[in-house]
């Protein structure tokens, strides 16, 4: 994998295109679809980086579960406005300038790379590296406690999501669900006004 791997180049270029597409898409559904594509490409990238198990997990979790969830919410909330204009003065230009500097800095740091395997050079990757077996071995031996804690986190998140989404169910025709927030919202002039 020395030099510029053509597979990597193609996959990377596509990942960037889909990412840009995602943040530029007018339609939220298009954006979500770009994201599915991006996550799929990421899974391929994981394969190229000797992480087959993670590639599978990426497909299942991101491209599967999370994307379905996002699309579901998009459908639930109905038609979404594009909201492409910028009401906050200077936000766009300042953000672009700061992102340019940050991006350049990050790329510059990434270009430094990292020291390779202890033996030096590009050592041969063992075939089992990153395989489901190896991952399972690591997860259930060395990392078993974090693994269990993460399962708890998932449980809490699930309960939390249910509580948050279930909370304050109001009739939909009521313009503002929370009177306090609604009053506030009318008091503060909208930046777009």
């Amino acid at each position: 994998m020395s030099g510029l791997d053509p597979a990597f180049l193609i996959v990377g270029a596509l990942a960037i295109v889909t990412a840009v597409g995602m943040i530029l898409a007018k339609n939220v559904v298009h954006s979500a679809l770009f994201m599915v594509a991006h996550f799929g490409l990421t899974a391929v990238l994981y394969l190229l980086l000797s992480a087959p198990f993670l590639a599978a997990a990426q497909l299942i979790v991101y491209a599967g579960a999370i994307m379905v969830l996002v699309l579901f919410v998009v459908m639930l909330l109905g038609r979404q406005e594009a909201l492409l204009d910028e009401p906050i003065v200077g936000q766009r230009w300042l953000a672009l300038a700061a992102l340019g500097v940050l991006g350049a800095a990050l790329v510059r740091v990434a270009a430094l790379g990292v020291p390779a395997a202890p033996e030096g050079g590009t050592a041969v990757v063992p075939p089992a590296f990153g395989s489901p077996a190896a991952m399972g071995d690591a997860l259930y031996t060395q990392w078993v406690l974090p693994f269990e804690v993460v399962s708890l986190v998932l449980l809490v998140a699930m309960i939390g999501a249910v509580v948050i989404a279930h909370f304050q169910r109001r009739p939909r025709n009521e313009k503002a669900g929370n009177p306090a927030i609604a009053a506030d919202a009318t008091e503060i002039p909208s930046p777009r006004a």
Partner: protein
Amino acid sequence: MSIETLLPWVPALPLIGFVTLVFFGRRLGGRWSGIVATVAMGAAFAVAAWLALGSALLRPGWSPPRVMGIDEKHVVPADYLDHPQEAVYHSTLWTWMTVAPQYDLTVVTRPVRAGEPVPADAVTTIRLPQARITHDLELFATSHRMFTPEQAIGRIARLDLLPIGPDAPLNGDRLLAETTLLPDAERAIPAAGLPERPLGYVVDVALQLDALSLLMILIVTGVGFLIHLYSIGYMAHDADRPRYFAYLNLFAFSMLTLVLGANFLVLFVGWELVGACSYLLIGFWHKDPANASAGRKAFIVNRIGDVAFLIAMMLIFTTFGSLAFADVLPQAADPLVLSGGVATLIAALLLVGATGKSAQIPLYVWLPDAMAGPTPVSALIHAATMVTAGIYMMARAHVIFDHAPSVLVAVAVVGAVTAFGAALIALVQSDIKRVLAYSTVSQLGYMFLGVGAGAYASGVFHLMTHAFFKALLFLGAGSLMHAMEHGFHHGKGSGHGAASSSEDHDDDAFPPGPPPALDGIPPEQDLRHMGGLLRKAPVTGWTFVVGGLALAGVFPLAGFWSKDEILHHVIGRAGEGGAIWLALFALGLVTAGLTAFYTGRLLLLALFGAPRSSGAAHAADSPRTMTAPLVVLAALSIVGGLPWLSGPLAEALDPVLRVAGHVATNVAGSAHAAESGPSALTLALIASAVALGGLALAWAMYRPGTPLVDPARLATAMGGAYRTLRGKFYVDELYAWGLVRPFTRIADFLWHRVDDGVVDAAVNAVGRGAVALGQGSRRWQTGYVRTYGLGIVIGAAALAAWLLWLV
């Protein structure tokens, strides 16, 4: 009981009375408050009298013990130089403060040749200030100021040490050591070095009794007791008697502290306390704003003098390293310690302090206004005792004044001019209390004149006689006012006619009730409304006559002797060839004539002739609690000055007030005065003639019936002069214009411009700045998540860029 243990009771008894009245005054009620206060004063007088009889201070020719009042903190060296021995009793109550820290001083106890090693058995460590060191003059002069070990090296010090305490180096024996402080400072002087300020000085709350303070406490407690007694009757109808008597007792305590203090600081405490009491009592009837403002005026004017006194004390401390009389005065007697410039400065500052308390030019303006207080207060504080504090203080510190002949001349000039000016003002006043007030200022001026002439004993003598007859006159005036008020209320209710003051001599012609006040003077104390009171109030009247004649200086009453003695000393100085003393003598003599004149006027207007108002017509004598003190004081005014009393007194005072031999060239001692100038008899005749002349003139102008010289016509003839005197030389107006007004303006400026405009504005600006800062920075809190995110990104970018490219 020994003198030392009994001594603190003299001030303590009035203090106990004061504390009792503060806590239980309301419960005791007015009558019992008066009795408690009077008993406290009486007991204090009894103790003072016991001290007088038991201490032998007043016995001439008595030789005092060599060292007195040794205690753990205070040692009076037995032989200061060649200063005359004084009979002094010390009573140290407690240590107030340690002014300088303690030092360990290593001294060599026998002569060692300079440069040779010092044998170990010749070295002793003494802890200052347990040991007090008197040195040979050479070192003495340096050691009592700042000096370095280098300066001390090579000088011969005679150490006169009295070791005290558990680790005393010798068995209580006096250690006399002649030593040379060696060049080898390491050995002779410990690493700490000689103390920068040589004597670690401990300020004690200590009392000291000598002939001078004994005389003062006798006056204060004796006259004070009589005035307390009088107050019971005079204040009988005042609702605030507990407060009044509490103040009166506090004053007595303060005054006794002042005269008994064994150092300048205790004296100063008393000095300030009497000022505070004076303020409280002048403004006793504080519901009238004029009284309250008179109290403030007295307090503020006094404060000017007090500042000078305070500075003088600081100078004394830096010069002598101590404030105790026992340390300072013997040193001051030594011309090597006290040089001319410092002595003049200290004496001048003390003089300013004294002019404040003793109401002399230029600080006398408070005393006439102080008559706003109750009349017994005027008698006690503003005539007999407190105002004499300045004279007492100068007499006490006379050793310093002896070194400053120019200041002494200034004292005499201030005194003579004050005496003359105040007597002039007193000539034309209509308010009986104001006449007496200016008379007091004038008489205090006489005392200053005596002190300035170096005749301290004469000044103190006049202080004593003046205390008698001026207290008598004030109390008599109070009694007359009391009688007048009685008269005003006598016929009240029998019809209200036009309240006009008629010159008709028919008693029944006066409309009942008090006539309206003229010139703002209450009618009962206005001479124009009195007349013929001698017949209506005989006891008060006759004692008043005695007091008046004593003030006028009529032979053989008290005032004659003391005034004569002062004039005698002044003319004695003139005999030495000082033209200024001749002028001062002339001024004194003229003042004596003026005094006799205004006293005669006072007596004639108040007591003789026909009544000039219903008050005078129906007056009645005061109750016995008021007249009894008058009788006693009248007796004292008669005998108080007789030579068989004043002679021994002068002799007893002599050790305290005698001018030391080697400065006698500066000051004419009493011995010189006798030889130069006119003889005592001639002078007495002249003074008597002047006094009688003044009285005769008064008789000519104010005698009952038609006057030989009509005062009204005279006043018209001399319109300008009369108005000036009537207006008291317009000094109050001058001060108001020249001092008070600029001061008020400065205060207004500081208030409105500096305080409001700068200080408050700065505070407000800080507040407004904080608000503006908040208003400005709240704009950062847009509430938009994306702005916050942008902040994070900008920060991260800046940090990353800095780390990558700028470091």
